[in-house]
């Protein structure tokens, strides 16, 4: 809202005609437009009929019939919380009115009125109203920017099909720490069966970065639309940041832009990545540990020569990949969590719940996460496995198993805060038993041998799936599901009590490589 050049419009309220006339004369000398009312009810009528925003201040008596000054003030706050109100009172009334300071009164005037004091109070009240309205207007505009940024973050399914083409789904979550931020995502379909995504992160966070992000988002989208290749787009942005923007002699804009370009070719079934300064992209294919691709690169706007991370990843029939801005890495580090757990929590949060989540999460930087899933277009229900956790453990980690368990628990509870406690106990016991077995037998306690702990959630089925694998040969004979748990008091010793506990505590288990890879499933819906 632009500052008004007029002195302002003031509503004077007093049931004493003489006082009202006197106030009118005094305030009128200040050049203010004046309206009057002889009691609180009449004042409210004026405010409602003309619209409270048409007034810049209210000066009211305290003791009046129908509505006293304090009751009028309460009603004004409901109509327009920015409208400053002055209460004219005697010294004896002032003590009883002290509570009204909390109710938003702008000032008190002491009877009898002093012209200079009255005029000064009205000028201050008008100034305060205008400042508050300007602030409210800016807040509304910021909220509009945030809303636009959220709407620009796409969540689009692509189920169109060419022969042999995979289908894909994209989910994004954007969480600026203020109302607007410097992260953006742009999606473009250059041809059927082809999706290009750019995730960008302008250094810094706030409205300025929101503007710069919007600038680059438009620039990138425009270049994508006319078929310019990712590398050329990156070079153009780099040049723009280094030469045209920062070196134009009109004052530097010292921003940098991290951007990752992802081309999903659903016909050739490959993912092509060009990364300039963003965290690595993480791919998850069922049956394999999550893999990071195309990390280690510098942002645009740093060096004249680009140093992008480049990778081409075969897609397979089904899988997913996750990419995020470095704000997510910061948040994970701050909370002592893995990025997978933080990303999973965001992706599991419904868009409508994001503003509340953002307020309680105390992010230190803007956070953006995007996730692609690909799957056969007309096949079974697509695999919706959402990676929550992955840790590679050297074979000599056995003595530190308590710390591993504690880390795993912390990440699990962050990603799934409503995990039932009985399920958590079962999960922790099973993970512990499986890991001890993998480290002790599969890795033979050797540092060079590595065991993997991976957890994924299938949100649609409310099923948690945890895999522990080791490089060993497994057992000579695959263990079938036991009919019951062993009798620990039987004379024949049970060498596999841990494994049999796992069979008891899980909903189901799967083994591969003679048990060197054990997958444990937990039905969260049943817990």
């Amino acid at each position: 809202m632009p500052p008004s050049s007029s002195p302002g419009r003031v509503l004077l309220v007093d049931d004493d005609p003489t006082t009202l006339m006197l106030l009118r004369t005094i305030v009128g000398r200040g050049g203010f437009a004046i309206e009057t009312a002889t009691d609180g009810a009449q004042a409210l009528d004026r405010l409602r009929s003309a619209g409270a925003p048409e007034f810049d201040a209210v000066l009211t008596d305290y003791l009046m019939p129908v509505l006293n000054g304090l009751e009028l003030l309460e009603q004004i706050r409901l109509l327009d919380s920015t409208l400053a109100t002055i209460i004219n009172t005697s010294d004896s009334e002032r003590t009883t009115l002290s509570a009204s300071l909390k109710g938003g009164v702008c000032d008190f005037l002491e009877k009898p009125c002093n012209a200079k004091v009255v005029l000064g109070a009205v000028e201050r009240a008008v100034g305060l109203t205008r400042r508050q309205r300007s602030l409210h207007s800016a807040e509304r505009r910021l909220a509009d920017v945030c809303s636009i940024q959220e709407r620009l973050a796409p969540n689009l399914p692509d189920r169109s099909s060419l022969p042999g083409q995979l289908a894909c789904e994209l989910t994004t979550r954007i969480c600026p720490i203020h109302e607007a931020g410097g992260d953006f995502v742009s999606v473009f379909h250059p041809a059927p069966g082809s999706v290009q995504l750019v995730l960008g992160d302008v250094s810094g966070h706030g409205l300025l970065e929101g503007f710069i992000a919007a600038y680059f988002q438009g620039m990138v989208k425009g270049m994508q639309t006319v078929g310019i290749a990712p590398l050329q787009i990156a070079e153009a942005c780099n040049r723009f940041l280094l030469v045209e923007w920062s070196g134009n002699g009109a004052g530097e804009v010292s921003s940098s832009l991290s951007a990752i370009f992802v081309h999903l070719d659903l016909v050739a079934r490959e993912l092509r990545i060009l990364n300039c300064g963003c965290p690595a992209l993480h791919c998850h294919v069922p049956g394999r540990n999550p893999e990071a691709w195309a990390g280690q690169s510098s942002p645009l706007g740093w060096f004249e020569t680009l140093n992008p991370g480049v990778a081409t990843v075969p897609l397979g029939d089904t899988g997913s990949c996750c990419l995020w801005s470095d704000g997510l890495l910061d948040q994970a580090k701050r909370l002592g969590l893995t990025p997978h757990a933080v990303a999973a929590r965001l992706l599991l949060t419904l868009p409508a719940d994001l503003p509340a989540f953002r307020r309680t999460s105390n992010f230190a930087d803007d956070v953006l996460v995007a996730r692609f899933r690909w799957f056969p277009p007309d096949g079974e229900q697509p695999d919706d496995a959402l990676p929550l956790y992955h840790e590679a453990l050297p074979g000599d980690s056995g003595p530190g198993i308590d710390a591993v368990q504690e880390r795993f628990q912390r990440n699990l509870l962050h990603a799934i805060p409503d995990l039932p406690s009985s399920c958590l106990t079962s999960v922790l016991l099973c993970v512990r038993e499986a890991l001890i077995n993998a480290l002790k037998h599969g890795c033979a306690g050797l540092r060079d041998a590595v065991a993997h702990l991976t957890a994924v959630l299938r949100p649609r089925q409310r099923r948690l799936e945890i895999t522990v694998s080791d490089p060993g040969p497994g057992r000579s004979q695959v263990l079938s599901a036991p009919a019951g748990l062993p009798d620990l008091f039987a004379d024949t010793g049970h060498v596999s009590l841990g494994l049999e506990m796992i069979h008891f505590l899980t909903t189901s288990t799967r083994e591969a490589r003679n048990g060197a890879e054990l997958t444990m499933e937990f039905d969260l819906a049943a817990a």
Partner: protein
Amino acid sequence: MQTQFHNNALRLVFPGDILSTNVAELRVALLGHLGAYPMAGGVIADLGLSNLIDSQGLNLLVALFRECERRQVTFRVENPVPDIQRLFTALKLAERFGLTPAPTPVLAAT
């Protein structure tokens, strides 16, 4: 590990989870306490502070049970959390540990 000797019974209060990483230490402590109270006619394992017992922890409790048998003193477990009670039941330990049967397991094998 805290101990109480009352009514001719030795109460052993386990200080927390009973896990592979602390069973050796707990075993030494248990043997020390049993040796310190040779006159005890019964042993009570108080698990009120234990939320997690892994396979090696279970084996420790079974070993404690057997040691009590060898010394011809009674043994029972008290205050297990529901998840642990369910595990004892599934492992047919509940009765031997002097516990009443636990409710049906929440997560049963399919």
